[in-house]
């Protein structure tokens, strides 16, 4: 939808993103140099990955039962973790977006913390909470529940590291949308849940989609917290990143398997980003 109103009132903020093309290029030209280096830093390793790849080995490596098992486990756990993130993260984002400044700042800091924490630390923290001698772990043990080194632990680790991405993105989107439309909807007789379902969520949809994609991608690539908290047992907790690590370090397995598996993960990530772009472009507003 790129139709623009012929005249008249634009309800939202006016569109100032379309800059004058001449003015857009008025910046120090030497900035192109570090920018190019930046692109190289980001892209060259991936190019090297493709160059180094022994393509004859790819079908075998990718189609091996171990690889498929790891991929299936990764996709399944990442999907469940993303689902959990949406269920918990959207309400959390809403609460942050609508809280007073002070409360919002505290909540936002708590939410961002796992984002800046090394995932390994996250794994240790999760063990401290849910491990056999952990804060809750003992009680859970008495109840016969053991979480570490299970598939559940994988999902928890992924949720822990991915949730901030969803919350931060959705919260920003909710704050941009503001409350004006919600007030209008309420004035027309809509109860709170109706307003949330029919106005708030659709208006925050671009952020929700972007957040979900980022969240899924982060869960898919999660390694550190998973390795510590869930371990590396084939079929239960060995997700793609762990499978790659195992292949890379493992005895008797060539590095090429690790590279082929990495390629798979790169392809999944690219697919996710492409999907996100196509969604974003016809997203409302």
């Amino acid at each position: 939808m790129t139709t623009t109103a012929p005249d008249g009132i634009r309800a939202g903020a006016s569109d100032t993103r379309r800059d004058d093309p001449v003015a857009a290029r008025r910046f120090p030209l030497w900035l192109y140099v570090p920018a190019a280096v930046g692109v190289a830093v980001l892209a060259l390793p991936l190019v090297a990955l493709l160059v180094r790849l022994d393509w004859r080995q790819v079908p075998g490596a990718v189609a091996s039962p171990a690889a498929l098992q790891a991929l299936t486990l990764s996709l399944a756990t990442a999907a469940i973790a993303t689902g959990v993130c949406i269920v918990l993260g959207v309400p959390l984002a809403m609460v942050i977006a609508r809280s007073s400044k002070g409360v919002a700042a505290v909540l936002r800091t708590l939410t961002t913390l796992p984002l800046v924490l090394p995932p390994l630390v996250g794994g240790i923290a999760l063990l401290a909470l849910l491990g056999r001698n952990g804060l809750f772990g003992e009680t859970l043990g008495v109840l016969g529940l053991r979480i570490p080194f299970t598939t559940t632990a994988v999902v928890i680790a992924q949720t822990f590291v991915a949730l901030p991405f969803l919350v931060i993105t959705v919260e920003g989107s909710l704050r941009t949308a503001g409350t004006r439309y919600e007030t209008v909807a309420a004035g027309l007789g809509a109860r709170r849940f109706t307003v949330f379902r029919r106005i708030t969520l659709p208006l925050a949809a671009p952020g929700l989609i972007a957040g979900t994609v980022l969240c899924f991608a982060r869960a898919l690539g999660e390694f550190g917290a998973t390795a510590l908290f869930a371990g590396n047992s084939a079929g239960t907790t060995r997700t793609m990143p762990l499978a790659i690590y195992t292949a890379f370090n493992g005895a008797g397995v060539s590095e090429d398997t690790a590279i082929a598996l990495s390629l798979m993960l790169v392809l999944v990530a690219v697919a996710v980003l492409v999907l996100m772009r196509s969604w974003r472009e016809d997203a409302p507003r």
Partner: protein
Amino acid sequence: MTSAAGGGLDARVVAGVGDFRLDVELAVAASEVLAVLGPNGSGKSTLLAAIAGHRALTAGIVRVGERVLSRAPSIGGDDEPGGVDDSGAADVDLAERSVGLLGQHPLLFPHLTALENVAFGPRAQGSARREARDAASAWLDRVGLAGLERRLPSALSGGQQQRVALARTLAARPDVLLLDEPFAALDVQTAAAMRRLVAEQRATLAIPTLLVTHDPLDAIVLADRAAILHDGRIVQQGPTAEVLGHPRTPFAAALAGVNLLTGVAVARDAVRVASASGPIVLRGTGETLRVGTPASVVFSPASVHARAAASADPSQAADSAPADNAWLGAVASLEPSRGGVRIVTDQHPDLAIDVPSTTAVALDLSTGATLAFHVAPADVSVRELS
């Protein structure tokens, strides 16, 4: 949500915003339109926000018929002995208030089509999908937008968006209609068409309407009564023709765009007004005045005729005192006005004269030029000062 059909709006609104204090009491009968006129900062938006339920009252009550929408703990010496139990504050939730608000910006839900926007209210209030869509379709037809049901707001013009917003507000079947500068963001022609549409649609609804505006034209076209809001207080209230036709304060006069002068009655229909160049006697119509009592005179800047003083009547030029309803003045400033030029003279700085562009050109106006002014008694309204 037609629980209080036929009920009028009664409101006593006391609300404070920082140093500003709004204290207004108003009553709007069902099927009546009350215009509240005031400039920015007079408290219009605070008043509307309180009635709409967007802000709490410091004190007072908002009631539609028997239904109390908002109530703050009573203030000492309120007008209600017994009657309703005013033991505590009460605020009906936004979704239950049934107050329709149409503002300056249409605020159509950007992700819903025109039809879905209008159907939103009925749907939210429990109508079946089909029923809501039929009602919405009928409303779009009433506001002249049949055929545009499936357009998104971004594909509608500003005027069309505001029509959809009107349809959406009315389709929710409100018990009270609040209009907040609903034409201010539209161009002149679109605003005129929209004003007509609101007048038509409103006439078919038996609900009280409160119109808040700074444009007297809105009040003239739509309102039965008008109230002038100044610094949080209503300074004048009455039939629109009376309030705008003979404002009582300089403030109200400026708002209505008319000249208001005060002086002393020198005849049943004439008032002598002091000025820097000696008194002017203005004869007019209206109340029968008692000679010697203070009185006010009102006339439109456009009803004054201007001529070059040099070509004035020899008879008039011979007199030292000018005739009734005539005076001389040296041009102090010239400003553009609707379709012409506004003249203010050194001698009468609080008196504006509007002349059409053609006259302005013929007079070869310039600052310092002396002009002779005249206003017909039929165009002058005289009142005793209360």
